[in-house]
């Protein structure tokens, strides 16, 4: 393209010159990275990004172990007796409840709770532009709140410094996971994950079914002990009432043996009793609390902070999200539509955004601009618009099974942009360090056509220094938002 405005260097020479980078490029080209591998939050991913957990998975193994152990003891030692003396439905009901509990627990732990992807550099720059131009001409740090009206009620939106955006309402930043989570309820260490919009129903099912399970096991165990002690007593009585049948010492010996065999099974029963007794209080309490939250369409976070408490006056600060009807609130929270996962874990990182740090530092900015401009002139523009037209073809690139595993958080329809890849002027120092080498438009994703030319557009290069400047003078009050290191 001879009429390229910014072309200062012949693109052909640039493409071939760094031969080592070229080889590196080719090596990297063989293995395009998936987005979960470069995810900025503190999460762990398994099964190729299909399963995710918080990095601090807390006591999830303990929770699972405790449930499995107690139920194992129940099935092993109590069920045989109870089936014999009562009904066969007891282990069946227990089995169903147990399965439901474990499955709900796994859903809660492994599902994306509603993590919001971090703002793209363009978005962040746009927000800062708006904030700066609306204020005075002298520089000041961006305000941290924005007030909006929701159902005629004033709600303050806070700015998240880590994710570089104004948080939507009911969204909170979890410091343990380092993510903004929609409709953030709490970070549950028992479950090893945040509880948010997408997995609240699983969490609620888990605690409700666990309440039923512990109550059921508790009841069965009490029944077992009662029945067994009655049997023991009647046995002792029977032996005492017929002394003529056995000599005294033998009858005593038989009584002792029977008592021991009762005790032998009772030890496991006692263990179950203790576990159930202590868990029942906490689980039932938690279930009751969450039932109240569901009925009033509140989150634990809001309840603890007292965001909508009626102390300030019923009209002023009612809950703007409540449907003012308990049944509707319950149905909306628990039976509402399942929102999609916004972080596309299985998508591929767009290679055009990725710039090797070394080459970026070596090559001067104008050269870099020219090189990428040349790319854009020759190929990217044509490609991006073609891709736009034929964007449905991209779905062919996605691995199979993407559409089926949606509840585990896979974005079915599209791949969100790699929101935290910095532009060449390095907006974020704290973001993910690894940067795949840029490929000369060989592989692509839907977002690359939007981001790659932008990264070298001088218009945005002008905008980009402001975030780095703003970082210097930001003083963070909210501890969870601490994500920036002031540039010395």
């Amino acid at each position, binding site marked *: 393209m001879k009429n390229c405005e910014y072309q200062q260097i012949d693109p052909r020479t640039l493409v071939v010159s760094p031969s080592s980078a070229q080889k590196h490029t080719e090596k990297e080209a063989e293995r395009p990275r998936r987005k979960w591998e470069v995810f900025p939050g503190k999460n762990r991913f398994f099964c190729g990004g299909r399963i995710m957990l918080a990095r601090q998975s807390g006591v999830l193994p303990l929770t699972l172990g405790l449930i499995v152990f107690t139920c194992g003891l129940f099935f092993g030692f109590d069920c045989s007796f109870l089936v014999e003396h009562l009904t066969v439905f007891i282990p069946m009901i227990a089995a169903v409840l147990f399965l439901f509990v474990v499955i709900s627990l796994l859903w809660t732990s492994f599902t994306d709770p509603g993590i919001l992807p971090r703002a793209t550099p363009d978005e962040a720059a746009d927000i800062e532009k708006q904030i700066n131009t609306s204020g005075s001409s002298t520089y000041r740090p961006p305000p941290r709140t924005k007030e909006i009206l929701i159902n005629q009620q004033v709600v303050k939106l806070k700015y998240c410094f880590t994710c570089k955006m104004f948080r939507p309402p009911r969204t909170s930043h979890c410091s343990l996971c380092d993510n903004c989570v929609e409709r953030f309820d709490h970070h549950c260490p028992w479950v090893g994950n945040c509880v948010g919009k997408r997995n609240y129903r699983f969490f609620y099912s888990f605690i409700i079914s666990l309440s039923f399970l512990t109550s059921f096991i508790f009841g069965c165990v009490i029944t077992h002990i009662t029945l067994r002690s009655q049997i023991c007593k009647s046995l002792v009585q029977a032996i005492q009432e017929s002394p003529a049948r056995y000599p005294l010492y033998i009858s005593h010996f038989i009584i002792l043996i029977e008592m021991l065999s009762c005790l032998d099974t009772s030890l496991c029963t006692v263990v179950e009793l203790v576990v159930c007794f202590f868990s029942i209080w906490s689980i039932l309490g938690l279930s009751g609390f969450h039932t109240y939250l569901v009925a009033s369409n509140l989150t634990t976070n809001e309840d603890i902070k007292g965001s909508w408490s009626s102390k300030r006056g019923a009209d002023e600060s009612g809950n*703007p999200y409540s449907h003012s009807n308990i049944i509707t609130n319950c149905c909306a929270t628990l039976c509402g539509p399942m929102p999609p996962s916004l972080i596309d874990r299985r998508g591929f990182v767009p290679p055009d955004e990725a710039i090797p740090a070394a080459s970026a530092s070596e090559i001067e900015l104008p050269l870099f601009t020219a090189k990428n401009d040349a790319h854009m002139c020759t190929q990217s523009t044509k490609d991006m618009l073609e891709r736009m037209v034929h964007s449905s073809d991209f779905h062919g690139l996605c691995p199979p099974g993407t559409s089926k595993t949606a509840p585990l958080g896979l974005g079915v329809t599209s791949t969100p942009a790699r929101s935290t890849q910095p532009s060449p002027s390095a907006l974020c120092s704290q973001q993910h360090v690894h940067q795949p080498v840029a490929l000369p438009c060989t592989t692509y994703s839907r*977002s690359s056509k939007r981001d790659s030319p932008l990264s070298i*557009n001088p218009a945005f290069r002008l905008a980009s220094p402001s975030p780095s400047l703003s970082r210097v003078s930001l003083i963070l009050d909210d501890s969870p938002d601490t994500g920036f290191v002031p540039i010395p």
Partner: protein
Amino acid sequence: MATEFHNLQELRHSASLANKVFIQRDYSEGTTCKFQTKFPSELESRIERTLFEDTVKTLNNYYAEAEKIGGQSYLEGCLACATAYLIFLCMETRYEKVLKKIGKYIQEQNEKIYAPRGLLITDPIERGMRVIEISIYEDRGSSGSSSGSSSVSGSTAR
């Protein structure tokens, strides 16, 4: 369609990304997904107001349909609960079906309306459902470095 394609061809040879406009979310009715229909000033010279508003309103309607709490969603929810949510592994939820429709609609809008005017809409799902990103392309030959023309775009309600 041939005319539009001809325009796309021309765009290909001459377009460069000049600016991006972000249409923010409208939270006046709660946390349901809805975008502001305020016409951003950067697009004034590029596209008719009515076309833009139609696009945003249609998108809002699609999202409202996806998030509607009604008979079908209750049924889906209860069925899911009864099967211990294992049904999510097999079935596509209603939301996902609507998202596909939205993807197709945006693609169609891009082809028919926006690309001929040098604009490109990004599906909001790729931006975390926070913004509708509209990329403005300019002819290479015409303006040079058009840094952000006046800044306030789709300004948020303050």
